[in-house]
């Protein structure tokens, strides 16, 4: 299985029936494909609707119905449309059970940086600051390193998207929880040795007494 698919599949196990979830652009979007059949989640699209369905296919594309990445999608029965103020009232108001986002950097305090690299890349935060600040659970889903360079740090040095908001980091190497004591590895991918995972992580990685293989 592709590494991104592996991560998405593991993230999909985080949800319980009825959860309201916003999936970021890129890898997080894949998560929707792996939600178990007996779990029904409400997918929120920050450009203004609930009930994101599969991508549009066929010859006639409806340009009025796109996701936050601008791609034509569908809406499921039971969905609803609203404006951006309502969309972010949902996010900021604590009505999202979880958001899944990528990161440039994330650290052991739960700080997250994913909106700019000064002097280089300044895409902007879009809805990410609201998502990180507002969702009950902030799950970072990403590859463990950037081509070998750690992204899970002791302290982010890029401008933050949100301070101390991340609850969980899920990568192809394992699942880490942000706790009062620090970053706790609770699941690991048996394809990697623990030392290998530690070496790929700049943050101090605590190992759970109850460490399990990643499933």
């Amino acid at each position, binding site marked *: 299985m592709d590494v991104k698919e592996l991560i998405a599949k593991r993230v999909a196990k985080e949800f319980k029936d009825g959860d309201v979830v916003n999936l970021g652009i890129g890898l997080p979007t894949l998560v929707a494909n792996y939600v178990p059949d007996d779990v029904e989640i409400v997918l929120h699209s920050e450009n203004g609707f609930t009930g994101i369905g599969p991508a549009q296919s066929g010859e006639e594309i409806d340009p009025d119905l796109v996701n936050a990445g*601008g791609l034509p999608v569908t809406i499921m029965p039971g969905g609803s449309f609203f404006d*951006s*103020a309502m969309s*972010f009232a949902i996010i900021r108001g604590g009505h999202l059970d979880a958001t899944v986002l990528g990161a440039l950097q994330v650290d052991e305090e739960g700080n997250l940086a994913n909106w700019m690299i000064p002097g280089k890349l300044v895409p*902007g935060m879009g*809805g990410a600051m609201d998502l990180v600040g507002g969702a009950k659970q902030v799950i970072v889903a990403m590859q463990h390193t950037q081509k070998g360079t750690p992204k899970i740090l002791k302290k982010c040095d890029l*401008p933050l*998207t949100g301070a*101390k908001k991340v609850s969980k980091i899920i990568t192809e190497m394992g699942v880490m929880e942000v706790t009062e004591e620090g970053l706790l590895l609770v699941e690991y991918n048996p394809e990697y040795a623990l030392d290998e995972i530690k070496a790929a992580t700049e943050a101090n990685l605590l190992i759970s007494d109850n460490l399990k293989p990643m499933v």
Partner: protein
Amino acid sequence: MNKQITIEEAVSQVKDGMTIMIGGFLACGGPNKIIDALVAKNVRDLTIIANDTSFVDKGIGKLVVNGQVKKAIVTHIGTNKVSGQLMNEGKMEVVLTPQGTLAEQIRSGGSGLGGVLTPIGVGTPIAEGKDHLIIDGKTYLLEKALKADLALIYGSKVDEKGNVFYNEATRNFNPMMAMAASTVIVEAEEVVKTGELDPHLVMTPGLFVNYIVKA
């Protein structure tokens, strides 16, 4: 009161140096025909308030590429590489704002409120220089209300009184912008007779709209 005007009459209201709100989310639900006419007219030194700067060849993106934008107050510029270039070269000022904050700032401007008290952005670079208020133990940023000389919005179905229905995900920032500008022009995909819109489906009451341009 006949609110319908031609696209030429609409564009004649736009002057160099104006502050203009433009609806749309990556050009979905944007007044793209009016923008094309603005590009042709080549008005300059505009301050644009919008969700994003779209793509180089779509909607607001064309205004940016044509060098007509002096300042952009937006949430995201990552889909238009010219925006980043102009920003880095100091040719266009870019104020990046969290999407939910921008939506509320515009709504506040249209609602007679002084600003927004939001927890989003606290502890990040966007909080620098802004007033912080502590209310019941929680810290909020004071983000000021936004207003504009002109709002250019898009409507899927607009009646002769200016009542607007937005189809699917085209609603986004349009309803708030319709409230916050001295003059509001809606680019109507379809103009219908007064009484043909179900009053429950009116998402922007006609009282906000000054002019209607048939797309």
